[in-house]
Structures are given as structure tokens and as C-alpha cells.
């Protein structure tokens, strides 16, 4: 069962995503829903780095997404830049602000960090709403140019937009895969699992937490920039804390602290809500309790639960194999070690 987290699984997912417009032939609405889900998936993957892998529950994520989006909106509409250079800046502007927010907030532990970032999120939202000279206030920014002129492709049609967003999602996932499987990623996880211990091992807590935070909000900024060029209209709503709650939900449904989980969550949950459209106003009446039930009964999400189940299975198989080997008097080899390694590998 290497299918789900092996290279083949990822390529299969990518192939499915590339083929999707052909399944949804002629239905631009589905393409738009999917592309929006991909944009939020990029931000959610970023949120998962600081919350899932490093263990700091950030509640300002949508604020950073808004920073990226407004970077693109302001530079293109007010300063006449074209999309691509503005987009290239969006992630860096978010990360730059993230540096200062991180330096102050990451000195706080646990709940304090979450509360602090919630306040930062509100400051960002209120600034966007009130600082009319810069952000156009509640009126919002209209007429953001579509990303054009790149290799002769015009990204105004839903299908080309879809592929553009998919390209950046694939790039984001690949980059995140490299990050979490590097020494840096292990360092982040060590901090999550116990920061006193990590510090005792000689890990510089502050520097690594700030780095994780900056990388995380870089993703948010990039997602925001992409969102601006995709939706082409911006209002303060993008910064609302509810978007952070949404992303938290995606992360949790899929499986926090895994690579695949947030991705599946941010695509699956919006589709589910599409089917729950008939509930209209009652959507969150159903979703709130769903979130609670999930936290109580499936705290590790779909992917996390699958991994736990497979790990249990693998160790059971390994112990059975070991028992069998002991019975037939063959010397035990690396079977047990192999089984455990398989169980703890990352999705």
C-alpha cells in the first residue's frame, strides 16, 4: 500500500488534476470551484507548516493571504504594474511582515501565541478596512488585470486559469515536500514534539520558529497574490478570520501534520460544501458540530487516521512474521525494522 504516499500516488493525483477539465467539459463553474480550492490549498499547506509541523496555532493566516492579495491589487491597479512582477513580490511582502510578527509573537507559548496572532489578524483586517488611501477601504479594489503575456497564453479563460493555479499548487506541494523531508523539517517537528527537549538538543528555537512562520506566511502571501489575479476583485473580506478557520478545518479534516492531508482537505471540504448548498444559511449549523465531532473522534484527520491504522497493521504483520520466523527457527532479519519504517513514513 505505498500507493497513497509513494511517488506513484502523487503522480496519479497530478494526472487526475490535469485530466479534470476534460471530465468537467464545458462546465466552467466546476473549474472555478476547483481553482479556488487550489488557491486555498496553497495557503493551507503553508498554515500546516507552522501549525501542523511546528505546533504553533496561527490565527492570522488569512491576514497574510490578504497581504499578498493586496500587494498584487495595489501594485497593478494603483501603480500600473503588470501581474507577474507584482505576484513575484506578494509572497516576499507577506514573509517580510511575517518576520516582524514572528519575532514578537513566537516568544509566546501555546495559547498566548494563538491569541496574539488572532489580534494580528484583526489588526490586518481593520487596517485594510480603514486605511482607504492605501487599500480603497470597504469599496475594494476592482479591475485587477488577469495574468497575461506569459508564453503567449492568456489566463482569462477558466481552463487556462485552472492550469495556472494547478501549476503553482503542484510547485508548492513539491517545495513543501522538500522542506518537511529536510533537516529543517525534522527540526520543526522536533520543536512541535517538545520545545524544551529540542532546545536541549541545541536547536535554536526562536530562529527556527521564525523561519517556519516566514515560510508559512510566504505560502499564504503567494496564495493571496494568485487569488487576486484569479478573482480580479479584492475586498477586506479576504482577511477575515473566518478564512483562517476554514483553512484550519481543511487541515484538520485531511490530517494535520501530514503533506497529503491539508491538500485533500482543502479540495474535499469545498466540494462537500458545494453539495451542502441546499442547506444555505444552515451550512455552518451543520459544519460547526461536524468540526467538533471530528476533533473528538478523528483528531488526526483522514490521512492521519489512515497512517495510524497502517502503522498498527504493519507492526501487527511484523510481529506475526517474527513469530512465524521464530517458530521455523530461521534467524530474524531486518523484517521488523522494515515494517516499522514503513509505518512511520510520511504521507
Amino acid at each position, binding site marked *: 500500500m505505498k500507493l497513497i504516499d509513494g511517488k506513484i500516488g502523487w503522480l496519479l493525483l497530478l494526472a487526475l488534476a490535469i485530466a479534470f477539465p476534460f471530465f468537467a467539459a464545458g462546465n466552467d463553474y466546476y473549474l472555478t470551484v476547483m481553482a479556488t480550492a487550489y488557491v486555498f490549498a496553497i495557503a493551507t499547506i503553508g498554515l500546516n507548516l507552522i*501549525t501542523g509541523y511546528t*505546533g504553533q*496555532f496561527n490565527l492570522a493566516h488569512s491576514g497574510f493571504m490578504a497581504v499578498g492579495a493586496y500587494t498584487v491589487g495595489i501594485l497593478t491597479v494603483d501603480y500600473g504594474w503588470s501581474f507577474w512582477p507584482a505576484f513575484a513580490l506578494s509572497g516576499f511582502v507577506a514573509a517580510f511582515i511575517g518576520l516582524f510578527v514572528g519575532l*514578537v*509573537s513566537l*516568544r*509566546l*507559548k*501555546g*495559547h*498566548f501565541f*494563538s*491569541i*496574539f496572532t*488572532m*489580534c*494580528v489578524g*484583526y*489588526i490586518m483586517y*481593520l*487596517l485594510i478596512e*480603514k486605511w482607504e488611501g492605501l487599500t480603497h477601504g470597504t469599496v475594494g479594489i476592482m479591475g485587477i488585470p488577469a495574468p497575461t503575456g506569459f508564453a503567449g497564453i492568456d489566463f482569462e479563460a477558466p481552463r487556462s486559469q485552472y492550469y495556472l493555479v494547478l501549476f503553482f499548487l503542484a510547485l508548492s506541494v513539491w517545495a513543501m515536500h522538500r522542506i518537511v523531508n529536510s533537516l529543517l523539517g525534522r527540526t520543526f517537528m522536533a520543536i512541535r514534539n517538545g520545545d524544551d527537549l529540542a532546545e536541549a538538543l541545541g536547536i535554536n528555537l526562536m530562529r527556527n520558529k521564525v523561519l517556519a512562520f516566514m515560510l508559512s506566511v510566504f505560502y499564504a502571501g503567494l496564495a493571496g497574490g494568485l487569488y487576486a489575479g484569479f478573482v480580479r476583485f479584492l475586498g477586506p473580506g479576504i482577511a477575515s*478570520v473566518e478564512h483562517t*478557520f476554514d483553512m*484550519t*478545518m481543511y487541515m*484538520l479534516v485531511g490530517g*494535520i501534520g501530514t503533506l497529503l492531508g491539508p491538500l485533500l482537505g482543502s479540495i474535499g471540504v469545498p466540494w462537500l460544501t458545494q453539495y451542502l448548498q441546499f442547506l444555505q*444559511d*444552515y*451550512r*455552518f*449549523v451543520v*459544519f*460547526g*458540530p*461536524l*468540526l*467538533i465531532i471530528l*476533533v*473528538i473522534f478523528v*483528531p488526526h484527520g483522514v490521512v492521519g487516521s489512515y497512517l495510524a491504522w497502517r502503522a498498527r497493521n504493519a507492526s501487527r504483520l511484523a510481529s506475526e512474521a517474527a513469530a512465524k520466523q521464530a517458530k521455523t527457527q530461521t534467524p530474524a532479519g531486518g523484517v521488523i525494522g522494515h515494517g516499522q519504517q514503513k509505518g512511520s513514513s510520511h504521507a
Partner: protein
Amino acid sequence: MELILEQILNGLTLGGVYSLVALGLTLVYGIMHVPNFAHGAFYMVGAFAAFFLMSNWGLNYWVAMAGAGVVVAAIAVISERLVFHPLRHHEGLHHMIAAIGILLFLEASAQAMFGADFRRMQTPYAGIISMGGVTLPSQRLLIIVAAFALMLGLHLFLRKTTTGATIIAMAQNRDGAALVGIDANRVAMMTFAISGVLAAVAATLYAPINLVYPAMGNLVITKAFVIIVLGGMGSVPGAILGGLIIGFAESFGAFYISTDYKDIIAFVLLVVVLSLRPQGLFTTGAR
């Protein structure tokens, strides 16, 4: 001079309301170590309950306030039983997400039942009092008096009654409290009920000079969090003092700096304070 006096009274009004909300939050944090993000939704439900009781059943303002207290206390206790109790052995992140679930549920329910419109709550105290050149709407005076009376009542309850003592004991040392035979479940439920009543009363007091709508709790709860971080998580005097600090900062900030940015002042204050003192103003160490 009159203007300054008016700002002081405004600060006391805001501070009183914020303190009440922050008190409920800090009690729950002290006992359960849960930052209850749903507390703002409790506050909102309190306002809607009072509004409904007054407009549909024609009840008197004070009776409606009591009714709202009962409704929100019941919701708070149910949340404790169904959500926070099963999660007591989980890590901190899960508490917060579950609290967000309650928040989404209550907010969406209010919106589904009452719509997203802004409503105005009537008050029997719509008049204006003028004392020595200072004019003051009577509802504001009522808020100040009622809020501080309630705080005094809570203080006496916690200090003078056995039930209050069990709450304090559990906040100070959970294991110790269990050792001397304090029923943790009972104390947890009671704490949630008290926090619900405080939120409902604060909402019913403040709603007539503000508006009633499903998202009304969000900004208030965020400020209440700022207050308990400033005042020390779990500290009762800290919540009151922190509430007053934020109330005064806002009323003077709105007057001398800008009304547009008055809601940011509390947050900026927090950022500045935590940059200088990461453990908060009055705490000796972060938990």
C-alpha cells in the same frame, strides 16, 4: 474639563462591559485551561435572547436579562459537557478548534433564525442625565453601576462562599483540589454557567447603546482575550483591571487619535506590551 470627564465615563462604560466578558473567559481559562473562542458567541446569544424575550414576549428589560442569563448559562454548560469534557485529555490545539466549532454553530444558528440584519434593542433607560455640566445617557450610567455591582457580587461569591472557594481551589491546583474531594465536573460546569451569565448580562447591558447582530461577539471577544493576556490568564483582578485599561485606552484614543482606528488601539497596546513583557503586565510567569 467636561470633555475629559465624559471620556472617563465612556472608559468606565466600555471597561465595565469588557471586564464582565473577560471575567467569564478568565474563569474558564483558570479552571479548564481552555481559551474559549466560543465565548464571543455566548455574548452574542445573550444579546439575541434578551432581544427576543423583550420584542416577542414583551418582557421587562431586567427579566429579559435574567432570561438571557439562564439561556446562555445552559448553552455554556451543554458545551462543557458535550465538547470540552470529552476533550480534556487532548492537546491544546484541539480545544481551540472545538471552540471554533461551537462559535460557527452558534453564529450560523443566530443568522439562520434572525437573519444578518442589525437590530436595535430598546431600553427603558433612554433618558439623559446631566450632572454639573456633564451629560450622560442613563443607559451608560446603568452599565457602569450594574457591571461593577456584578463584579463585587462575583468577588464576594468567590471569596465568601464554599462553592466559590472550590472554584478558586481548582483554579489554583487541580490535583490538590481533587485530593481534598472537590468534584471537578461540578466545578467545571459551574464555572461555565457563571461565565455564560456574565457574558449574557454584559451583552444585555451593552446592546442598547450598540447593535445586535450575529457577528457582534467577534470584536468583543478578541478584546477580552487582549484583556486577559494583559491582566494575566486566569486572574480575576487582572481581568477587571485589564478591562478598565482597554476601556480607557479606547475612549481616550477615539477622542484624541481617531474614531476610525479605535478598535485597533487595544490590539496595538497588546503588541507593544507583549514586545516588552512577553509574560503580560501583571503575571509572574506564563503558563
